[in-house]
Every structure is written in structure tokens, then in C-alpha cells.
């Protein structure tokens, strides 16, 4: 080992505290990048593998009643690889102890053998046996939520007939990763069941002997989905086809896709911000560290080392720290990504995990750290190289404080000498101080933006369930009914207000952009469920035209004034041309609103309602639920509190859960920045402090010079950080927003307060750590060493 390399190792040992602090900040930035990209690619790979292994269909074609022979017609279509018909429909589950009826979806499995498409993954018990009509498989999530196990009996109501079934097995399916009761946004395992029964049993239950009401298709490689959809629609049309749709419009898949793409948006949007802040800090720290080596650089040059050799030596020092941090970050990132993937595995209900890592984030993280560190080092080295060895070695000339902007004598009289030392350092060496200030401000911005986004989640829930939806209960009817039913609801004792709604399933189309959703028909001035504009003021339903949620307008790429095509997927299935007349800030989901009379008129079904929002007297809720449960026209009853809880859970366990991890990392980086700033200031002032101590200043008096500087820099960084945080919040909030929910970008006073507290706490702790060290400084040796 060459003497220079030995020096390198000893130098590293000497500055180990700071090297570790710098390395840690880089490590955390890289960790974030590696973790997020690893997580996203793993989830995508796993989903793909799950879909393939259990043969999830790529085309779903609902139909009223098609004879079984039509399946072979579908299978023969060009571009179709496999086709299968099945029977599916709605049911109610009667669980003892549950005040509300629970909705369920029944799906048929072939009597013999495995299904060609949409197989199930058995998690307990056994598969259905032959054509036994009293056996069912139950969705694992629902079974868990209600403590049901194979062997238990489940009572179902299908088409008005009540019957008991025996649960023989529990299952999961790529088709039902997420289950959402009709009319609800957030999934809830406890309130929606999926039940598989034999084809024979399902045909009997839904009166579809020898027929199917849903076709599943998989496509040959390279086939055009649009062409297949068209062909399928043509074949099924005579049997009441309701328009085939591809996987991207499938509810569960869309949900998973949305969640994963939320994570992906986050992984591309947020980690670079973190890494950027880390890189900036690295630049500042390294440049000041190399500056402190000035004398040794002069010495090495005096010995005859040339600039390249000296530069290489310090470059190595920088690389060891940066690379050490980057490698640690990669390793921790893999571990964290793996752990997070494990958590999401449970959340997404994937039966297995394919952990996938791509080299991209490693290379990006590694290069960013090393480039930032080298830039910091080289910048200073160039300045030092410009000096002759003799000058570089000379007992450091005192830093020049004679610059312009001398203090007014009035101010001087107010300040004692140590305070002047603090202030002059800030006013006359602005370069260093601005660097330190920007570093701390960036740290504050990072924490602040994360805090703002965290409170944004609460705000979203608060607005969605406090301002937009002010009902207590939502009732959905089995089908669109005469509005006379509203009177029936209003007569229930304890119901204070009834507000009708007409939900119409539809495909919204603007040119090539489509969205499969629904139109919500509301009364002109709703009180319980309202559309709000960006100021949270209610929007009155216009006599004609549609109001779109902002993210929906983005998906459809449409603005107010343009015409929207609404392809209704109910009844006669007309296509409507309706102008977009406004945008609503809905925060949850992506609704489209119309006046209820206008949509009914367009459908030529006047006076129809599909559901109602109720305001009720909480003390009579049990009696009200029991009345609703016994009304045959009521298909579902949803409590707002349940919905709110489901959403909270969704935000806390889905992509949104990442906010906690990221906030933690933001705090680590913020502390790292503040601590490093304090350490650098300490290194630069060590000699001054020792001199003060020798003159007779007490430990506290002497450390005031250092702590005062840290305090002033921190305080100055607060307003700058607030401005940075304000802008950063937009980026981070956009990263956390998806089609499922939007996070408002707002950096408020409370957020600033929290972030400022975090920075001040970090500053106090760093100050305490630094003071502890300066108190221990050996006066003699500190005086002997020249800077």
C-alpha cells in the first residue's frame, strides 16, 4: 500500500464521524430510489405472473343470456386464443349479527375440470366436487373478515330465493384482488363477498339453464383488442350483449394498476427530489472538507506530487465516502424494497412474490452521489492548485473580514464581541453561509412537503366525507325505480332527509379516450351529496350538460364547452352527446355529475331513481337498518362511517402508506443536513473557540460563537425552506395522487410549524452534540494546529 493510500485510510478514520454522516445522507437518498423502483417492478412482475398462472381473461363480455354454443363461435374469432362462458350474478349474504345485508357476487366454475380462463387459487379446503349444487368456494378475504372456515354454512339470497350452501374451500383469484360493493369507491373485504359455485348450481340459481351471461376470452399474441371487442359485440348483440371490455377496464385490475402506478409515479417523482437534496448537501460538505485540507495539499505539492496525483488522492477520499454511502443505500434499498414488497404482497393479496431488481436505480444512485461529491471536491481543489505550495502551506492567513458592509457604529455599540463574530461571519463570508442555509432550507422543504402531504391525506378524507358527502347512509336499489320509493324511505321513523340519486353505468368517450364509469344524476341543489368547485363551494346542477371531476377531465382530455359522448350501459343503451359545463374537485374517485331530471329525460325514463342518500337520527339507526334490510327493493345499504374507514384503510395500507416511510426518510435527511452543517462550522471554528477559552472565556461563552452561528443560519433557513417547501409540495402531492384519490397540494401554516419544529429540534440536538465535543477540546493541541 502506498503511503498516500495509508494517509487516505487514516484521514478517513480521523473524519469518520462526518464521513458517516455524509455517507448516511447519500445512503438514504439511494435507498429510497432503489427501494421504490425495486418495489414497483416486483409488484408489476408479480401481478403479471399471477395473471398468467391463473389464466386471467383479457376480454370480458357481459350478456343477458346467450346459449352455450355461442362460445365456440367466439373461440373461432380471429385473434381469440380461448373462450369460455360462465354464469354470474348478484346475491345477498345473510350473516348473523350483521344489521345490514351484505352484497355478493356469484361466479360459476365448470362442473368438471379446471376453467380454461379465470382459475382460482385455493387457499384452504378443497375444490368443488362435480356438479354438487350445495357446495361453494368463498373469497378468502371475506371469510377472514367474518371468521368463516370450510365446513361452515352460508345463507344466500339469489333472485329472492333464500338457500343455504356449504363452504368447502376458500379461494383467491386475480380477478378479485379488490372487491368493491357496487356504488362504493374503496374496497372492503368485510362488506362484499365473491362466491364460486358449480355451473349447474349457478344456472339453476339464475335461471340460465344451457346458457351463459358472461363470456371470457383470451387473445392470441399480437391480436388487436379493439378488433376482438368489436367482433365479440357483433356476435353477442342478438343475445343482449352489454359491450365487451378489456382488462384495463376491469374493476379489480384497474384498482391494482392504479395503486401500482401510484407507487410508480411516486418512485419516479419523489426519490429524485430526495437524492437531489442529498447530492446538494454532499457537494457543500465535501467542498468545505477539502478546503480544510489546504495545508496538507500544499505539503504534498512541495514534496513533488503533481496536481493530478494530489487530485486523485482527494478524489479517492470523496469516492470512498460517496461509494460507501451509495453501496450501503443499495443494500438497504434492496432489503427495504423486499420488506415493503412483502407488505404489499399481503395488501394486494398476491399468493407469491417475484422480487425483481433492475440495475437502473443502482447506477443512477451511484453516479449521482459520486458526481455530486466529485464536483464539490474538484471545485475546491482547483482553487487550492492555483496557489503555490508555499502559500498553500503557510500558516493560514486569517480569513478576510474586511469586506464591504461594515457595521454601523450604532449597531456595534449594541453588540458584544462574540455577537459581532457571529454576525460578521454571516455577513462577510456569505458564500459559506448561503450554502449552509440552503442546505438546511432544503432539509426543511423535504420534511415540510412530506408533512404537508400527510395533512393533505387527512384533508382529503375530511372534505370528501364532511363537505362533499354529508349523508349518513346510502341506499342502492336493485334497479332503477319510480321515485315513489323515496316517500317510503322518508316515512321510516328517524329518517330526517332523503335525497334521490340516479346512477347510470356508462362509458364516457372523447375521441379515442374512454373511461368506464357512471353518471351520477343529482337534484339541482343537493344537500347531502354535492359537487364542489375548487373553493369548496357547491356547484348547482345545470339543466343540461355534465360536470366532470377534474382528474376525469384529465383522463378524457376534455375541457368545459366540449362535447362528451356518454355510451349508456343500461336499458336500451343509448349514446348521448352532452356538453361538459363544469369541473368539480371531488378528491375521491372520478365522478361525472348531471341533473337527475336531465339524465332521466335523456334515457326517456322520467322519475326514476337508483338510490338515495339519507340523513338519519343516529339514536334510531338500528331500527332504520332493520327496516331497510327487509325492503325487497333495497340491494345495498352503505354507511358513510364504514366508507370513510375503508378509505382511511386504503390510504394507510396502499400506495399512500408510503408517505410514512418517506416522511421518516425525509426526517433522517433533514437531521443529517443540520448535523453536518453544525459539524462543519465546528471544524472551521475550533481554533477560535480554543483561543477564546485560553483568554478566559467559559465553555458556554466560547461555544456561543459556534452555537450562535448555527442558530442564526437555522433561523434564516426557515423562511427560505418555507418557500422551497411550498413548491416541493406540488411535486410530492402529485406523486401521491391517483385516480382513486387526489391529495391537495397546500403547504399551510401548521405544516410549516411542524417542519420548523423538526428542523429546530434537529438543530438543538446537533448543537448539543457539537457543544459536548467543543467542551472536551484539548486547548493546547487545538492552539498548536494551524486551522
Amino acid at each position, binding site marked *: 500500500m502506498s503511503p498516500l493510500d495509508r494517509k487516505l485510510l487514516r484521514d478517513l478514520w480521523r473524519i469518520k464521524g462526518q464521513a458517516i454522516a455524509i455517507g448516511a445522507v447519500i445512503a438514504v437518498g439511494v435507498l429510497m430510489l432503489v427501494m421504490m423502483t425495486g418495489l414497483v417492478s416486483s409488484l408489476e412482475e408479480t401481478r403479471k405472473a399471477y395473471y398468467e398462472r391463473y389464466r386471467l381473461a383479457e376480454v370480458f363480455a357481459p350478456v343477458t343470456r346467450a346459449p352455450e354454443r355461442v362460445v365456440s363461435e367466439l373461440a373461432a374469432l380471429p385473434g381469440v386464443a380461448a373462450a369460455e362462458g360462465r354464469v354470474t350474478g348478484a346475491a345477498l349474504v345473510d350473516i348473523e349479527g350483521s344489521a345490514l345485508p351484505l352484497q355478493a357476487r356469484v361466479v360459476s366454475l365448470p362442473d368438471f375440470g379446471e376453467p380454461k380462463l379465470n382459475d382460482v387459487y385455493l387457499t384452504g379446503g378443497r375444490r368443488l366436487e362435480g356438479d354438487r349444487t350445495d357446495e361453494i368456494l368463498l373469497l378468502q378475504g371475506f371469510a377472514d373478515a367474518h371468521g368463516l372456515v370450510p365446513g361452515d354454512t352460508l345463507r344466500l339470497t339469489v333472485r329472492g330465493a333464500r338457500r343455504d350452501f356449504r363452504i368447502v374451500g376458500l379461494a383467491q383469484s386475480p380477478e378479485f384482488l379488490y372487491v368493491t360493493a357496487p356504488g362504493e369507491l374503496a374496497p372492503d373485504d368485510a362488506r362484499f363477498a365473491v362466491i364460486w359455485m358449480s355451473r349447474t348450481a349457478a344456472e339453476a340459481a339464475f335461471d340460465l339453464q344451457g346458457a351463459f351471461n358472461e363470456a371470457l376470452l383470451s387473445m392470441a399474441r399480437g391480436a388487436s383488442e379493439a378488433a376482438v371487442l368489436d367482433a365479440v359485440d357483433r356476435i353477442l348483440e342478438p343475445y343482449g350483449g352489454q359491450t365487451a371490455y378489456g382488462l384495463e377496464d376491469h374493476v379489480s385490475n384497474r384498482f391494482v394498476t392504479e395503486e401500482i402506478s401510484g407507487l410508480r409515479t411516486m418512485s419516479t417523482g419523489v426519490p429524485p427530489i430526495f437524492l437531489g437534496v442529498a447530492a446538494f448537501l454532499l457537494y457543500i460538505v465535501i467542498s468545505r472538507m477539502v478546503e480544510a485540507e489546504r495545508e496538507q495539499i500544499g505539503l504534498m505539492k512541495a514534496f513533488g506530487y503533481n496536481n493530478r496525483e494530489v487530485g486523485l488522492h482527494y478524489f479517492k477520499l470523496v469516492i470512498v465516502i460517496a461509494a460507501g454511502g451509495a453501496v450501503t443505500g443499495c443494500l438497504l434499498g434492496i432489503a427495504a424494497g423486499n420488506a415493503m414488497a412483502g407488505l404489499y404482497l399481503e395488501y394486494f393479496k398476491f399468493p407469491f412474490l417475484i422480487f425483481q431488481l433492475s440495475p437502473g436505480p443502482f447506477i443512477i444512485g451511484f453516479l449521482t452521489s459520486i458526481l455530486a461529491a466529485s464536483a464539490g471536491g474538484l471545485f475546491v481543489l482547483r482553487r487550492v492548485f492555483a496557489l503555490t505550495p508555499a502559500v498553500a502551506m503557510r500558516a493560514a492567513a486569517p480569513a478576510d473580514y474586511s469586506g464591504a458592509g461594515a457595521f454601523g457604529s450604532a449597531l456595534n455599540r449594541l453588540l458584544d464581541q462574540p455577537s459581532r463574530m457571529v454576525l460578521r461571519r454571516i455577513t462577510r463570508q456569505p458564500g459559506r453561509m448561503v450554502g449552509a442555509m440552503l442546505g438546511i432550507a432544503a432539509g426543511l422543504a423535504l420534511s415540510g412537503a412530506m408533512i404537508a402531504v400527510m395533512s393533505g391525506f387527512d384533508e382529503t378524507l375530511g372534505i370528501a366525507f364532511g363537505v362533499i358527502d354529508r349523508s349518513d347512509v346510502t341506499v342502492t336499489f336493485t334497479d332503477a325505480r319510480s321515485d315513489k320509493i323515496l316517500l317510503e324511505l322518508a316515512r321510516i321513523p328517524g329518517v330526517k332527509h332523503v335525497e334521490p340519486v340516479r346512477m347510470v353505468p356508462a362509458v364516457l368517450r372523447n375521441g379515442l379516450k374512454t373511461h368506464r364509469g357512471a353518471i351520477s344524476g343529482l337534484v339541482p341543489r343537493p344537500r347531502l351529496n354535492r359537487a364542489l368547485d375548487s373553493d369548496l363551494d357547491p356547484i348547482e346542477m345545470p339543466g343540461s350538460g355534465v360536470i366532470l371531476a377534474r382528474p376525469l377531465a384529465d383522463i378524457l382530455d376534455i375541457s368545459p364547452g366540449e362535447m362528451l359522448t356518454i355510451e349508456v350501459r343500461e336499458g336500451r343503451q343509448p349514446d348521448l352527446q352532452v356538453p361538459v359545463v363544469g369541473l368539480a374537485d371531488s378528491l375521491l374517485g372520478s365522478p361525472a355529475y348531471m341533473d337527475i331530471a336531465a339524465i332521466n329525460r335523456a334515457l326517456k325514463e322520467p322519475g326514476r331513481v337508483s338510490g338515495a342518500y339519507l340523513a338519519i337520527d343516529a339514536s334510531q339507526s338500528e331500527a332504520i337498518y332493520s327496516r331497510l334490510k327487509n325492503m325487497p327493493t333495497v340491494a345495498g345499504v352503505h354507511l358513510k362511517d364504514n366508507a370513510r374507514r375503508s378509505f382511511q384503510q386504503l390510504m394507510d395500507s396502499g400506495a399512500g402508506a408510503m408517505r410514512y416511510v418517506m416522511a421518516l426518510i425525509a426526517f433522517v435527511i433533514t437531521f443529517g443536513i443540520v448535523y453536518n452543517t453544525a459539524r462543519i462550522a465546528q471544524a472551521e471554528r475550533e481554533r477560535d473557540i480554543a483561543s477564546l477559552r485560553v*483568554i478566559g472565556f467559559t465553555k458556554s461563552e466560547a461555544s456561543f460563537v459556534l452555537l450562535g452561528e448555527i442558530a442564526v443560519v437555522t433561523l434564516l433557513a426557515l423562511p427560505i425552506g418555507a418557500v422551497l417547501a411550498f413548491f416541493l409540495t406540488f411535486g410530492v402531492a402529485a406523486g401521491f395522487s391517483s385516480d382513486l384519490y387526489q391529495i391537495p397540494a397546500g403547504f399551510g401554516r401548521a405544516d410549516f410549524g411542524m417542519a420548523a419544529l423538526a428542523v429546530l429540534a434537529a438543530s438543538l440536538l446537533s448543537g448539543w452534540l457539537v457543544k459536548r465535543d467543543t467542551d472536551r477540546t484539548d486547548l493546547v493541541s487545538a*492552539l498548536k494546529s494551524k486551522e
Partner: protein
Amino acid sequence: MPVSQIEISENLHEAIYRTVGLTKVYGEGAAAVHALRGVDLVIPPGEIVVLLGPSGSGKSTLLNIIGGLDRGTDGEAWFEDQNLADMSDAELTIYRRDNVGFVFQFYNLMPSLTARENVELVTEIADDPMDPGEALALVGLHERTDHFPAQLSGGEQQRVAIARAIAKRPRVLFCDEPTGALDSKTGRAVLKVLKEVNETLGSTVLIVTHAAATADMAHRVIHFADGDVREVIENETQADPDEIEW
């Protein structure tokens, strides 16, 4: 004329410093370095005392201990009737603040304070200080008092350091190689200032140096070697710094 240690110790009641068996060991075991090996020494007040010796002889270590910057490993170090070895860190700080002025080879000025402000740094915390202007005048710096250290020459910086050290009217002025970084002309000027401080303020001045010529201006010269006092010489006459051969 050499005098024996015993004769000096008869004047104990007059001593400003007295050490008994003062030892300083750095490190442990085989790697231990004995910087001071049981030094017995008496320094009377009001004198200029020069500590001479090659580097590593222990003279700076002694200065640091009796200056309250460091502690001995063993033995006693008395400042009048106080044993510095028994003092806490806080008491040592008070001791330095009230009694001692320091001048170092590398000046140790605060770069962010002007010459006058560097002096004020001390006058603000001292009990009965001089006017900063007066202290600066004493070292011959009447004019450049509003300049920052970066704008002053080495000799000027050292004179500011002396002004800072004497402004509190210290009982003792410690100077560790005060002329080490200076040329002969500036060095003489600095020594003159030290002599003047001794004469006008009555401060005891302790100068650590390896420039033997400096010894001519001292009342007392203590030769150090291998961590102990080799010889103490009292000069009957003191040379003027101008006459000192550099």
C-alpha cells in the same frame, strides 16, 4: 551567576509560581512519554523569566500547566496560595480570566474582529481592564486599530495579540515563542513591548523560546532539558531588546 535551588526557596513567600515534583506523562505503558519529570521550580513575581531549551524539553508543557491550559499527571503547581492541580475546569477558566494573559506564536486572533475589537474581547470580561486604545498604544499600534487581522502584518498581529493579553492588566503574561514567526526587526519590537509591559504594569512575563539570545533581556533564565530544569541563571543586568543579537 548560578544560584542553587535551595537559596531561591527561602524566598517562598514571594513566589508567584512554585512547582513541587510536577510530572506530565503522555500515553501509557511502553509508549509513555515523560514530558516533565518531577519539576521543582520557584518563580518570583515581577520578573521577566525566559524558559530556554530544545524542542521537546518540556518547557511548553510547563507553561501550559502553570498557565491553566493543561494539567500535570502528578505533583503540585502553586499560583501564590492556590494549587492549580486541585482546580476544576471552571476554576481554571476564572484563573485564566483574572490573572493570565497569553501570547502565542501564531497570534490566535479572531479573524472576524478588528484589532480594537480583539482587545475589547478581553476588556469586556475583565475586572479592571485598560482602555483598549491604551493597550494598543502601549504596543505601538495607534493607527491601525480598525483593521482586521487579514489587513495587518505578522508583527502587527503579534502586537495586537500582546495588547489583547495585557489589556486586562494580568498578573502574569505567558508568551510561547512570541517571535517565532517574525523577522529580527519585528521580533525586537515585540520584545520591547514585553519589557515595557513588565516595567509599566509590573506583570511577571514568562517567555518560552529556543532563541537563546532572548535570555539576555531576562531577570531569570531557566534552562530546560529532558523534562526537567537543568539550570537557573539570574542575570544581574538586563539587556535592552535593541541590543539583542538575533
